[in-house]
């Protein structure tokens, strides 16, 4: 039986061997054929010589989560060959280099080996050793076009665009593709029963990673200052900001730049620059990961207490300490939400798709200005660094930035007595002024020390307490402003809560559970502090699951703490191995809870 547009292919390579661009081209080619795809780069914290994998999930049904079963393995790394072979599902296909005869380590007889003498093919055609290495990747790409029935013209046109201007590279690349293709057509049974075909499924969707989308969101959201310090997996966001700002933010008349980027000396300085710029009225952000958040905590407390807008992108990776720097996790929630000494808390946003990275990035600058406080956008490595199928980015040209309560010189003229921290509107948010605005009104001293409503230093207990209470009332305002949780409910008995990239496998998990007679209402958390709908959802469900990619159930802790819940009211489903959480895992955990607790299902399942 032939299946179309539904498989997982995994490429096993050595990093630094040029495989990334060939593998990326593979995923993009399928996308260009209109097929929904998601890609995952599983890479080591190393520049050259260690194993690296690239997974592509091809799914007409639009299941984009990681799946444990691999249908096709392209095993190009001798070192990991054995375990790569073991990863294949029974009946899966193994594409390997057969130059040295059939690999003796190939022990399984329940898989389909597809041997191609890749090294020998390349050897005969290319002289330069570096080219030989690079073109091995292109040759297996050529083989795959035949095996999977990929539209060859799509791939060749991609090669032509990729090397535009470097024409001398186009021909050899296409030649390498053809070597692979003609070998497959002459010596292999093509195409396989697992194959692709053109699809109409995509519509106008795009194939993009979350960091690039977030960088574009920052550009559209009006960010002018980016200060950062390199750290995987956030680096590509700052780099994408620079790359796109150079296209989109150049003054037509003068060629001057309407943005400034500082690669700071460390994360402390990066956030310091952001805070200085925010204080002086420019929209500013930093992109970092857990270790950077740790370094930024003192400044986060300052920005909270002094009420300075700032936007931080935390592209989370596996901790603690350096942890697994190239693996994904959702484990910085507590560190981010309550960052800094003293009574502090910060609004968090949890994007789940690249499109949402764009939207939340742009919105974060409005929230920061409105709430005069740091906003942390909690992305992760899986979302930030991997290209996947997502809604096209959209912008309403009528939209104006919400710059919050900033008084102009004319407005200051109307004000009798200016008090920076007066809660005039009852929402906990005072009016601020920018340096240099007015000759005689509105100047005030910003400090991290206690002050009264007129920004005058004081240690009076009442003034301090009043100020801290006002910050709490601002926190209540944040609850209304930030995006509400996304809920699907049919008043079922059980519900499942998730956030960020734990949403990716959820459609598939729910389908698996449905087959097993378990139906769940769902709630996707999009922001902290939680809105009223969150407690309502929990109250309305007898059984509540919460999916998280950390060990300590950090979101649950926050809910227990902030919503005054009994810890037993939420059943945690925790995965923290550093790969992105899979649909199978979530479904299994839910099912085993049902089994252990003898909970009746909707349908009777015969086992």
């Amino acid at each position: 039986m032939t299946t179309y547009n539904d498989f997982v292919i995994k490429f096993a390579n050595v990093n630094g061997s040029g495989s990334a661009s060939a593998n990326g081209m593979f995923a993009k080619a399928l996308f260009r054929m209109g097929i929904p795809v998601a890609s995952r780069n599983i890479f080591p914290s190393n520049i050259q010589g260690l194993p690296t994998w690239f997974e592509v999930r091809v799914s007409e049904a639009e299941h984009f989560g990681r799946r444990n079963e691999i249908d096709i393995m392209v095993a190009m790394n001798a070192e990991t060959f054995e375990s790569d072979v073991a990863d294949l599902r029974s009946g899966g296909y193994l594409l390997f280099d057969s130059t040295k005869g059939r690999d003796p380590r190939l022990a399984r007889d329940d898989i389909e080996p597809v041997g191609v003498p890749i090294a020998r093919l390349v050897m005969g055609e290319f002289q330069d050793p570096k080219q030989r290495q690079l073109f091995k990747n292109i040759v297996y790409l050529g083989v795959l076009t035949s095996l999977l029935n990929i539209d060859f013209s799509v791939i060749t046109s991609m090669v032509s665009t990729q090397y535009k201007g470097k024409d001398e590279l186009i021909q050899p690349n296409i030649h390498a593709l053809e070597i692979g293709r003609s070998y497959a057509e002459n010596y292999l049974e093509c195409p396989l029963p697992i194959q692709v075909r053109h699809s109409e499924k995509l519509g106008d969707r795009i194939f993009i990673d979350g960091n690039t989308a977030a960088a574009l969101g920052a550009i559209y959201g009006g960010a002018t200052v980016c200060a950062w310090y390199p750290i995987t997996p956030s680096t590509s966001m700052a780099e994408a900001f620079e790359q796109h700002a150079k296209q989109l933010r150049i003054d037509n008349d003068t060629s001057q730049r309407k943005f400034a980027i500082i690669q700071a000396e460390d994360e402390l300085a990066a956030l310091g620059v952001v805070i200085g710029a925010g204080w002086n009225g420019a929209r500013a952000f930093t992109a970092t990961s857990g270790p950077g958040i740790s370094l930024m905590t003192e400044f986060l407390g300052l920005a909270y207490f002094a009420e300075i807008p700032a936007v931080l992108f935390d592209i989370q990776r596996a901790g603690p300490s350096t942890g697994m720097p190239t693996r994904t996790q959702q484990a910085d929630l507590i560190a981010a939400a309550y960052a800094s000494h003293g009574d502090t808390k910060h609004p968090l946003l949890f994007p789940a798709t690249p499109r949402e990275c764009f939207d939340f990035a742009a919105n974060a600058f409005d929230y920061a200005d409105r709430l005069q406080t740091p906003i942390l956008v909690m992305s992760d490595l899986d979302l930030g660094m991997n290209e996947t199928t997502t809604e096209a980015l959209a912008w309403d040209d009528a939209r104006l930035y919400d710059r919050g309560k900033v008084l102009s010189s004319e407005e200051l003229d109307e004000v009798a007595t200016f008090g920076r921290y007066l809660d005039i509107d009852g929402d906990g948010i005072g009016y601020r002024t920018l340096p240099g605005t007015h000759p005689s009104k509105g100047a005030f001293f910003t400090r991290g020390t206690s002050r009264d409503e007129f920004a005058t230093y004081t240690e009076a207990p009442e003034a301090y307490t009043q100020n801290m209470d006002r910050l709490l009332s601002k926190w209540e305002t944040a609850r209304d402003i930030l995006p509400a949780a996304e809920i699907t409910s049919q008043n079922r008995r059980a519900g499942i809560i998730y956030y960020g990239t734990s949403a990716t496998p959820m459609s598939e998990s729910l389908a698996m559970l449905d087959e097993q007679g378990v139906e769940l209402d769902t709630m996707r958390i999009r922001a902290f502090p939680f809105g009223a709908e969150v407690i309502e959802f929990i109250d309305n469900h007898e059984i509540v699951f919460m999916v998280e990619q950390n060990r300590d159930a950090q979101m649950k802790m926050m809910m227990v703490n902030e919503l005054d819940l009994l810890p037993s009211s939420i059943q945690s489903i925790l995965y923290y191995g550093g790969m992105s959480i899979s649909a199978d895992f979530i479904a299994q955990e839910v099912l085993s809870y049902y089994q252990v607790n003898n909970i009746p299902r909707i349908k009777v399942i015969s086992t």
Partner: protein
Amino acid sequence: MTFVPKPKVRHPLLEFNEIGLTRRDYEGSVSTLCAGCGHDSVSAAITIACNEMSIPPHRFAKLSGIGCSSKTPSYFLGASHGFNSVHGRMPSVATGANLANHELYCIGVSGDGDSASIGVGQFAHIVRRKVNMLYIVDNNGTYGLTKGQFSATNDRGSTSKRGVPNLYSPIDLVSMALQVGASFVARSFSGDKTQLVPLIKAALMHKGFAFIDVISPCVMFNNHNGSTKSYQYVREHTAAMVDAQLITPHEEISVEYAPGTVKEVDMPDGSLLRLRKLSETYDPHDRIGALNHVQRAQEQGDVITGLLYVDPIASDLHEVLETTSTPLNQLVESDLCPGSEALDGVNASFR
């Protein structure tokens, strides 16, 4: 030094400047520092300089870290916004503030603890980045606000008030600033307004990073060796020790001396500070010469004061980054948002 004009004698508080303001309009709130603290003299010098330059007093951004010195931006230019940030991190905050609006005069005030210890990394990097600002370190060779611990600008061998010697090598911020590329580097003494005021004016006029290390005695923790003394001193052991707990008002120490001469100043702790003023023949455009000069003088126990180095055609961070002439904080939606049509193009590039 032609660009350091001699100040005219005038009644400073009453006389109107070119924009019709008096020195009063450049003052800040009443200082809460110890009476006689050198830092107050620095604030006064800033007040005088800004008044004499007739800059509208609200067109400054004042930034500082944490320390007695870092409190001082409250005590000058009350019509301007100030930001007392966190310990040692003023340089990054100032960088951000300057990026947002290059039209404001940016003044950063820090201490020797703030800039030479906890913030030494940020200090070095703001110098490298050429932020267009006046950066003053009120250098008292001690941690005033935390009550008199050694700071990194103390000379090896100088002793604390308990007689404990400093065992570590000093950091000289002037040498460091010269080394990592400051385009204006000066040293002065808080009590020498004749020298300090013109230096502040020249620094504010300078485009690029201007650094002034101001030796500014801490009268409170005066029975140990502060950095002012530890650079050069001839110690006299006869002076009376003042109990740190006993807050006695001190007279502000002021000195006046001619270029090319040496002035010995009695410090509150009884030590002697030898200030050597640069002679009129000194060439302030030679960076390596300046470095040598500073270090040779240090070896002799002298603290060189005056304008040590200036690059009159220096550039600043905004030039390096090629940012718009309109300050970034004044750009609006039409400047910043590329719009939906451009986004269509962006989307197309991801298909």
